[in-house]
């Protein structure tokens, strides 16, 4: 997983390598400086040799300038590498999602995908930057400082080794004890957030039932749980600072004793002791940084796992070799089609469907909720693959077509349809990028949309808000029909696409489609009998099976479900209004 994600560093590999290289150089300079300081104090200040003080001061400033340059460069490359890596990662995820089939999409919630593309990537980016900057610096600083101290005084180095062992153990056990508690805290956090979310969506119910206090009580309970768990986790974390101080102070005390003894016995100089103090703080800082990286990795790991999940997800709908690039006509044949969303033969959503539809026919589909109307039509543009049997268009199995060709020829108006932010024209051009003004107007006329578009001050240049919230439900449906028509498809599928359109307009749309695009096969899913009774043939679906297939009159005579629905709608003299 890490390897796969690390691959997205891509063209920023150079920066990702240069950054630690400069860090190494910076560290070397950083380690030399305290050594120079020691000499400056011992020889220069101690002996009163001003010339030496100036000289070593100049060298120190020179080295420090180098360290500055290396430091800034490494920071710059780290920024380039991490922001580039994050960009590539986002692009990788987004591109892969574009390849997803409907089945892939069903596995993830929209908000889950958004989180992956935003928060998760940001977490990984921060961890990555941290790692290339600090994960190199800290160990090198640690080792270099250890070597230098060893060089100055073996006993001092031994003291440091003891400190490292103590701190390493202490920090490790703090993290290990705190971590499971933090995991729990974040779980509880999710629960709390979910309850706020729920409260927001259901606020009308809360207010209508006067349950504000009840909700507050619920919230406070959840919030109290978080508080308690947080305290539990922090109980360990707060040990961090005192433990660090303890280690640092102990080192200073031992060093003072040792240093004094060695200076007196002339095996150490004052400057060297000062340097050792500096190295001791470098060593402790490095350890602290290492523990921070550790924590960062723990936070970033779940994010990486979630990202990896999407990156390795492969679409199961792919072009076969040498696909067919031409759809001959709009005839559709279902042969013994079985289908299951779960891909299991024993849990079929569609069972043994056999249908023959001639090119240019208008077909209505009627059936109750859950009777698999949408499922059935989604197999035509190959949004899902059949579990058994085959679907053929123009005499060719849909799996043999080039996917793009197939979907260009099968235009589908989805039940849960979406308009995008942009002008009406831009939205309609989704159907055909190069559609002329005339073609757009023509399609809108067919979809009975031109009438209301003309009432907008900016007509076809009217800006549609995200999700199409500034047009009514019926208007939105008519726009999405026009968009689908612009494709000039051989097959047009409308999945309950006129439910919010009034009966009269609905009938006008049906009529226009019949007259203007007679050669296009039209498949219409509807709740209302009136929307489909004029169709050449009507499919009655019940619980994933074809219960009837025939004309309105035939079905009225011999299909009890159809009869029942018709009676409840028409005999009871029921029609719909917008």
């Amino acid at each position, binding site marked *: 997983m890490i390897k796969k994600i690390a691959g997205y560093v891509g063209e920023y590999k150079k920066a990702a390598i240069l950054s630690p290289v400069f860090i190494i150089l910076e560290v070397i300079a950083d380690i030399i400086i305290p050594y120079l*300081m020691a000499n*400056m*104090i011992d020889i220069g*200040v101690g002996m009163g040799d001003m010339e030496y*003080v100036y000289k070593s001061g100049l060298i120190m*400033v020179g080295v*420090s300038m180098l*360290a*500055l340059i290396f*430091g800034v460069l*490494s*920071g710059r490359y*780290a*920024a380039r590498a*991490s922001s*580039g890596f994050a960009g590539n990662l986002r*692009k990788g995820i987004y591109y892969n*999602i*574009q390849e*997803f089939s*409907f089945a892939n*999409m069903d596995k993830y919630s*929209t908000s889950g995908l958004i989180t992956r593309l*935003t928060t998760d990537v940001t977490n990984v*980016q921060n961890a990555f930057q941290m790692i290339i900057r600090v994960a190199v610096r800290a160990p090198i600083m640690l080792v270099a400082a250890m070597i230098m101290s060893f060089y100055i005084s073996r006993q001092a180095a031994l003291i440091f080794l003891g400190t490292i062992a103590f701190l390493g153990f202490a920090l490790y056990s703090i993290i290990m004890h705190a971590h499971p508690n933090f995991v729990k805290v974040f779980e509880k956090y999710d629960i709390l957030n979910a*309850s*706020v979310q729920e*409260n*927001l969506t259901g606020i*009308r*119910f809360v207010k*209508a039932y*006067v*349950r*504000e206090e009840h909700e*507050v009580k619920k919230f*406070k309970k959840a*919030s109290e749980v978080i508080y308690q768990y*947080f*305290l539990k986790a922090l109980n360990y974390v*707060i040990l961090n600072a*005192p433990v660090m*101080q303890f280690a640092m102070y102990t080192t200073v005390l031992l060093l003072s004793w040792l240093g*004094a003894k060695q200076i007196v016995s002339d095996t150490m100089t*004052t400057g060297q002791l000062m340097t050792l103090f*500096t190295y001791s703080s470098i060593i402790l800082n490095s350890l602290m940084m290492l523990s921070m990286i550790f924590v960062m990795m723990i936070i970033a790991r779940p994010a990486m796992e979630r990202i990896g999940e999407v990156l390795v997800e492969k679409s199961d709908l792919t072009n076969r070799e040498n696909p067919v690039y031409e759809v001959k006509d709009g005839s559709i044949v279902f042969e013994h089609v079985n289908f299951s969303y779960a891909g299991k033969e024993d849990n079929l959503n569609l069972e043994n469907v056999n249908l023959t539809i001639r090119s240019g026919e208008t077909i209505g589909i009627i059936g*109750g*909720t859950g009777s698999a109307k949408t499922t059935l039509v989604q197999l035509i543009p190959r*949004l899902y693959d059949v579990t058994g049997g085959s679907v053929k268009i123009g005499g060719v199995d849909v799996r043999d077509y080039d996917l*793009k060709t197939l979907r260009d020829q099968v235009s589908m108006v989805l039940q849960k349809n979406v308009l995008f932010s942009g002008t009406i024209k831009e939205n309609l051009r989704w159907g055909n990028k190069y559609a002329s003004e005339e073609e757009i107007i023509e399609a809108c006329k067919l979809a009975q949309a031109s009438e209301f578009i003309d009432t907008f001050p900016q007509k076809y240049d009217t800006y549609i808000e*995200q*999700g199409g919230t500034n047009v009514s*439900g019926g208007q939105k449906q008519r726009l999405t029909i026009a968009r689908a028509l612009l494709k000039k498809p051989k097959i047009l599928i409308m999945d309950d696409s006129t439910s919010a359109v009034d009966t009269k307009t609905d009938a006008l749309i049906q009529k226009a489609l019949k007259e203007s695009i007679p050669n296009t096969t039209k498949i219409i899913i509807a*709740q209302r009998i009136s929307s489909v*009774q004029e169709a050449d043939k009507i499919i009655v679906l019940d619980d994933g099976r074809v219960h009837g297939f025939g004309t309105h009159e035939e079905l009225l005579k011999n299909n009890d479900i159809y009869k029942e629905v018709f009676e409840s*709608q028409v005999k009871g003299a*029921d*029609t*719909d*209004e917008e």
Partner: protein
Amino acid sequence: MKNRKAAISDKAGEMKIAKTNPLITTKRLLNIILKEYKFYLFFVVIAIVLSSLANLSGILFLRVLFDDYITPLLNKTETSFVPLLKGILTLAFIYYSGVLFTYIYNRMMMKVSQGTLKKIRDDMFTHMQTLPIKFFDTHAHGNIMSLYTNDTDTLREMISQSLPQLLASIITIISVFVSMIVMNIPLTIVEILMIILMTMVTKKVAGKSGKHFMEQQKNLGILNGYIEEMMEGQKVVKVFNYEEESKERFVQLNNNLRQSAYHANKFANSLMPILGNIGYLNFVLVAVVGSLLAINDVSGFTLGGIAAFLQLSRNLNGTVGQISNQINAVIMALAGAERIFILMDEEPETDDGYVKLVNAKIQDNGEIKEVPERTGVWAWKHPHNDGRVSYKQMLGEVVFDNVDFGYSEEKTVLHNISLYAKQGQKIAFVGATGAGKTTITNLINRFYDIQDGKIKYDDININKIKKADLRKSLGIVLQDTHLFTGTVADNIRYGKLDATEEEVVAAAKLANADMFIRHLPEGYQTMITGDGGNLSQGQRQLLAIARAAIADPPVLILDEATSSIDTRTEKIVQEGMDKLMEGRTVFVIAHRLSTVKNSDVIMVLEQGRVIERGSHKELIEKKGKYHQLYTGAFELS
């Protein structure tokens, strides 16, 4: 209506900018902390001071170590190591008490920060519950959510980490400065100059990186918006072969974000090396000036003195670096706190009502008497100015008298609405989307207040009725049934929190929901999660009806309650609904005219006006809009 929302949220945006004042926000935040934790904070400050002083005395010990112990030993004026040992032991005592104080203040701060956060969260939620529906209409849920997540998180970082660190830093700086001045004034001046240099550089670099960070947040927002939109519409993208176009724009936005992230981090990353190396420069300067002073024997400056001063200087530089690291966190947290305070400052729903709903008993002489227990009879308790209290039986009659209403002052969406609903009548509203049907029902339960005219409930102006009591007397079932996380029984009980198990089952039976509930894996105890995603639309609807049934309100509002259910399932739901409607005043908004047909009065709405009213029969005979809606299909065919 959507434009109205946009206009209001724009205004809110302006308000946010105008109100920005970090000082006021800080003060307010501190007040919250102080109010609850004055006592704690007092000890925290003391512990921090003691801990910093312990740290400082360690640094100052260096001078003592060199000058008072090592030098005499070197010069053989002292031969015993005992004084040194004593000195070190004294320091050890000071040091380890410092460790103890560090632990104490960390532990106390943990309580303070978590307690404060809990308080803020609880207060925020409690206040949010009092806000009017209008607030929820005009604020994106995502933005409100981020108050509870992002903003509270940054606040946690600040209170638990930045705040004590800043406090410790300030104390360190002050005490270090004092020691420096005591030790040597010329060197202190050098030090001050360097600190000024560091501050200026920090300001400059942080300013640059801050500008790019803002840019980055902006680009992130734009990209998030795009991602959200495309993910919502991903299936449409597939159906229209629009993948390439969707990638094109993404790449553009993604590049913008990458660029600004690069620049922001570039500057942020260079701050530490710059400060670190100014620190080295500082070191050299102090060493040079110090040596000059020592060599020329000015003011008795010693080797130990220089060593200690250098150590102090390192400490000071480190502290300044730490502060500059915290500044970003503090700024972000203050911005978050400000957003939270804006929510807390939102005006709550006003309620001047004084008429209350009480359980009542009708005595033999026809007089109404208030009783504590539930009797199934309710009365309006009406206190008068002269201290008299009168009771009126609650019947469920609703009268609209020339009501005008608009979501904003400028745009009226309902004009001159008058209606008279007698007890037990069924009133239906029909008309196109946006004609104002739902708006009317929202006025009855006072989700919104009317601009002109009068609404009376049992002949009492609804403004006089306490909102909670008014709403308790109204049951609503909406098209989008919202279910809460909890068991099926919990969800039904939402209508009456103290309902017994028998009452829950009875309500479910009335709503025709009992059958399917018994078939669920754990019956009434089946958990509902994620807004009832595991139930079908029809089942959810039945639960909503049961929930309304258990509340047993005299007035019911059914807003498109069956429209997303197919005709066959509707039959079952309709049966439950019919049972529920018996004996109640019902306002029904329906998609299907069959649901509306047997209403006592049908009101046809168009653009906020009642254009026709009457019974089904009357309206059909009238051959107006209703007739057209009703028979449209057949004329055409």
